[in-house]
């Protein structure tokens, strides 16, 4: 039995005698060095790395609802790096490497589970695109390969290889693909950041951005004004709206993204499996639930309502892949709001406003980037605006300079 469990059993007050994971609410100070807007994974990760590796601790994270309650809570916890562009592969691989170490870095188990991710190709166009992704991945040291039907059948014996009259032709097998307890990632970062002096303010909504000339000087919140030297915005679905308050536009369109989960059953599915043609992915959590997700809703909307149409088509496709799942039961359906860029890559780095840094455009792929995002954003803020090489391709200016990093096709329905 692990030592920690013995401690639980032998000491009634363990772990409560220590600091709580998340400190109790406190008053806002009038000034911080850094204000981070958004208490999701990216925001708290940025604060964590600022405090731990750059000694910047006079930091406030302002979260309008609760810690990790937005897309950090709603995503389906897929971690992978099998992207298409060299820029994307390098960036997401760096994230996967940090994820592997995260439980031990935090001293808090995020249940990182490297089960591999399998994406199915049903058309020769997809086979072609997958081969390219596999090749680019291998080029940068990733473990990704194109596998045939037989190898797929061995990997996932329960899979129907001829779903919906669309025979599976091949699969992109990404051994580095993983999942983790998504909430725990946000909590681990929050715990580590607040232990080092960062303040986490939940139920604190930023209503306006204060500027002098073109320089940010503070924010207005529902709990009063705060002065600060710099601001990081990391608000996912609401990025474009907040940027507008800061006085600039982001080329983002918000789409709802829905997902659902079944009742728990005993484990039968190890890898994460997704189908490009069926716009459906399926994985089994460590609790035994089956998580089913798909593509974004077809039209833009700032609402996290669920819809019946999407549920019907998504489940029909999940059953095409795993026919026996028709006798399982759906427990919950939910949605998040995703901020999509036209090239399916994020927007990171400097903004038109001085000392105002952006971390946006995370669409449907933000969770997997959490550690590297926090790491690079922290470096950016601590250096006073020197953009780390890894995120230079994701600058906002790329859209006006036609230097997009096109990941379309590497993201759809495999988040």
């Amino acid at each position, binding site marked *: 039995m*692990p030592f920690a*469990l013995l401690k639980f*059993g032998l000491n009634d007050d363990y*772990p409560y005698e220590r600091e709580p994971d998340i400190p*109790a609410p406190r008053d806002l100070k009038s000034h911080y060095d850094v204000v981070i807007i958004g208490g999701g994974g990216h925001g708290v990760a940025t604060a964590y790395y600022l405090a731990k590796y750059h000694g910047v601790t006079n930091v406030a994270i302002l979260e309008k609802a609760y810690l990790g309650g937005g897309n950090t809570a709603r995503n389906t916890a897929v971690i992978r790096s099998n992207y298409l562009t060299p820029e994307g592969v390098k960036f997401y691989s760096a994230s996967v490497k940090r994820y592997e170490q995260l439980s031990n870095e935090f001293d808090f188990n995020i*249940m990182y589970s490297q089960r591999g991710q399998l994406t199915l190709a049903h*058309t020769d166009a997809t086979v072609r695109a997958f081969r390219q992704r596999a090749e680019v991945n291998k080029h940068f040291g990733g473990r990704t390969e194109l596998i045939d039907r037989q190898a797929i059948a061995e990997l996932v014996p329960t899979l129907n290889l001829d779903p919906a009259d669309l025979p599976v032709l091949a699969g992109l097998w990404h051994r580095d693909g993983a999942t983790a307890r998504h909430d725990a990632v946000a909590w681990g970062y929050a715990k580590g950041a607040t232990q080092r002096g960062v303040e986490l303010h939940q139920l604190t909504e930023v209503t306006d951005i204060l500027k002098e000339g073109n320089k940010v000087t503070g924010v207005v919140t529902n709990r009063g004004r705060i002065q600060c030297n710099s601001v990081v915005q990391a608000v996912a679905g609401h990025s474009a709206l907040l940027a507008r308050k800061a006085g600039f536009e982001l080329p983002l369109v918000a789409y709802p993204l829905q997902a659902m989960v079944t009742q728990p*059953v005993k484990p039968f599915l190890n890898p994460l499996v997704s189908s490009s043609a069926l716009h459906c992915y399926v994985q089994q959590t460590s609790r035994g639930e089956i998580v089913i997700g798909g593509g974004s809703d077809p039209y833009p909307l700032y609402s996290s309502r669920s819809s*019946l149409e999407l549920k019907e088509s998504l489940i029909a496709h999940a059953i095409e892949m795993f026919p026996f799942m028709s006798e*399982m039961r759906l427990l919950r359906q939910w949605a998040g709001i995703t901020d999509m860029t036209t090239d399916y890559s994020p927007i990171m780095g400097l903004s038109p406003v001085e000392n105002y840094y952006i971390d946006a455009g995370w669409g449907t792929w933000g969770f997997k980037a959490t550690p590297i995002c926090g790491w690079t954003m922290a470096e950016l803020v601590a250096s006073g605006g020197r953009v780390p090489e890894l995120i230079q391709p994701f600058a906002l200016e790329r859209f006006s300079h036609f230097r997009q990093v096109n990941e379309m096709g590497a993201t759809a329905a495999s988040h």
Partner: protein
Amino acid sequence: MNPRLDAPYGSLIDRNQPRSFTFEGETVNGYLGDTVASALIANNHWLLSRSFKYHRPRGPLSMAGHDANTLVQTASAPNRLAEELPIDLGEAVSGQNYVGSLKRDWLRALDWLGRFLPVGFYYRAFYKPFGVWRLWEPMIRHMAGLGVANLESQPPYRDKQYLFCDVAVIGAGPAGLSAALEAANGGAQVLLVDENTQLGGALTYHRFDTDVESSTTLLSSLHQQVLGHQHIRVLSSALCNAWFTDHYLPVLQGDRMFKVRAETCILATGSTEQHVVFRNNDLPGIVLCSALDRIIRHYAIAPEGDVAVLAGNDLAYHTALQAHDAGLSVTAVIDLRPSPDDETLCEALATRNIRLETGATVSEALADRDGLRLGNIMVSHLAADGSVAGERCRIACATLAMSAGFMPAYQLACQAGASLSYDDASAHFKISGLAEGLFLAGSVNSVHTLEAVCADGRNAARAALTALGHNADTPETVSCTARVNHPWPIFKHPKGREFVDFDEDLQIKDIVNAARQGYRDIQLVKRFSTVGMGPSQGRHSALPTARLIAKATQRSVTETGVTTARPPVKPELLGLIAGRGFDPHRHTPMHEQHLALGAHMIPAGTWRRPGFYGDPVHRERWIREEALAVRNNVGIIDVSTLGGIELRGPDAAEFMNRLYTFGFLKQPVGRTRYAVLTNEHGVVIDDGVAARLADDHFYVTATTTGVDRVYRDMLKWQAQWRLSLDISNVTAAFAAVNVAGPNARRVLEAAGCDIDLSAEAFPYLDYQEAAIADIPVRMLRVGFVGELGYELHVPSMMAHRLWEIVMAAGAPWGIRPFGVETQRLLRLEKGHIIVGQDTDGMSHPGEVHLAWAVNRKKPFFVGCRSVDIVMQQPLSRLLIGFSLSPDAPRPKEGHLVLKDGDIVGNVTSCEYSPNLDRVIGLAYAHPDDAAPGSIIDVRTDNGVVVQAIVTTLPFYDPDNERQTL
């Protein structure tokens, strides 16, 4: 089997029809109408399942399918509610989530180890030293989960049906029945939905007064009126499982999902009875009061042994009275309050010799000798502050019915955006902020006395009628002062095991400790402790959790709240939501002819097309033969899947000119032009051929997979530009074939084509209208494959005949049908790109040799500004042709092009050309290497790098003489 009670008890069972099934290998007898759960408890078998975490024995709690304690496994599926499984299911039933047997579960040991496994323990263990999680995880995963999925099962037939109504009434208890009647009498079409087999809700089991009079007469009267009403359609055994925008309601009944579009919706969903939180409150035999009511009234079961009742309200007394009057041995009522609100209840108990203990609670339940059923309860005094103040007495009983109050069945209302606020005076959550056209009736609206509930139902119907524009009576005054909720039915025990959430095995300390560790927000409490995440989705745990967290964080219960209600209300079968599964794909009119010729069909967007004709094993051979036929003789390909769009009107040319990159204003009538589409980023997104049929009439093709998007974009731009033209997508109205090869002209002449097909009369890129037999044909002299070719577009209904005529006419020449895979090879020989294969999301015209198709002089086209900018920037890559000797390792599409070890591009097309006896391909390469004769490095399978020679395009017939013949 114990004898059942006499009628009228047992309203759901048919004593004349005995049935049996097996549970855990033992035969269990019952009657038709019994469920697995009722038949089991009728046989004194209360143990139905093992709990999620500690593997504690569990039995029915609600008898209404509202909890996870009765989840059992059948041969076909896991996690089925025993209260909903009919006895005549025809499958063996067993418990689930145990090692050993249901009665002797070895994992019960986890219960004793419980103190080592507190809430969130897995966050604090199993990861040190680095890497050990990999070993622990599989073990933990195997402990989790409940039932076992039957991996062999196949989806049975299930379907869907749409329904429409003015008023959907959800719930057919007294409120719902009253509402449905009032609405129907007011002229509305009513759909009444109830999840039970019997209408009447609580009227079918609860007794609302001491002599049972009011409920029985009311029920039969309402029943009669509703069932005979021509404006009311009743769906019973039907579950309205979600609310979606605009009152779109999925209703699940049997093997069908009704998709109900309601104008207005009345929620008469009732309320969920709440349990009392005390030590071992999960022992089999401890049930909610309403569950005991149901056991007696619905199933005529008199459980063996003594019965005690734990009351937090007056309603629980009625359970005690009903049980006694049915002949059960009721020993005691323990009331959490100093006295009942209705003093006459004390007398009613006294006349029946039922002991009353007031100001007391059950502080601990004790198991019988086997440890699988309730044996005794410990009754303790309650202090003025509501805490346990010392033991009073011990009472032997095998059944304990409890009621701490009610939680409105808020799920549908909250899915529709309503919120809950807690009223401290009544200790009750109330619903407010209803969506438009949504109304509440009855106990879900915090109204509890029978008269008030019915009046509230009528009022809701009146509000719905008014919203529909009908006349309605003025609302009645509804007053209900009955208190049904106890403010703090939570009793901590030094040894714990007071369950707040049965699904997830969470005790008081688990909830409180989550808050102590900083997870104060109710959403974080849920996520950290998993409270409310189980199959019953917090139906019983939400209220005590809100109270505990409010106290622990010194906030009000309203401020604490409950977690978001999300669809579905109850776990639903995936197969029922999916229905029959509907993935339509499209066939061209010539589909059967292709099959008859042995075509190997492949997906192309939503279509199926011949890839080649012949078995896939000899793919190479068929493609080679077809390609040679086209090059040397004549071939025919079905190109019906190409998009076809008609643009008609005075501004048709202007519209074309704004949308596509080429100039179209001066395009002569009777000519075709290549049409390239870029998006606002200057990226090539589609291409086709535009034929000008008349000054004001264009017929444009688009790619198979692109046409829907092109058409949508056209409509979008037209909505902004508002030019004078009509746009219609005629893809399915026309079918087309391309007849290509040196003998194409002869074949069409033989087919009886009624126009002069000579090069002079019908030159390359011309458009003409002709007839073959009596089939009107739009003829385009174009050719993707680079041979003399004619594309024949005909009305779809005539395409079948056209194919026959051309095939017959071509027979003397040996005309050969060819597929899309062959076409890909042939066009590659000509260096023609396929948009989407040789272009990607970043390809601009300059990178793919389409600059010639962009008119840089015209003032505007979609993407014009971006194309101008990107074409001024230095090229970072260029699509080039390459060739290799046939015996070199063959690059595949998607392989990388390297320069000094770095990625500079990728192979987009690559085939062996039988005409050239070389491997040819297209690839993006560094612009410095684009000159013909340069060498590029291509990394093929297994990392083998081959040197390919950059080759001038087209590979075949470089002077394009053949297509203009």
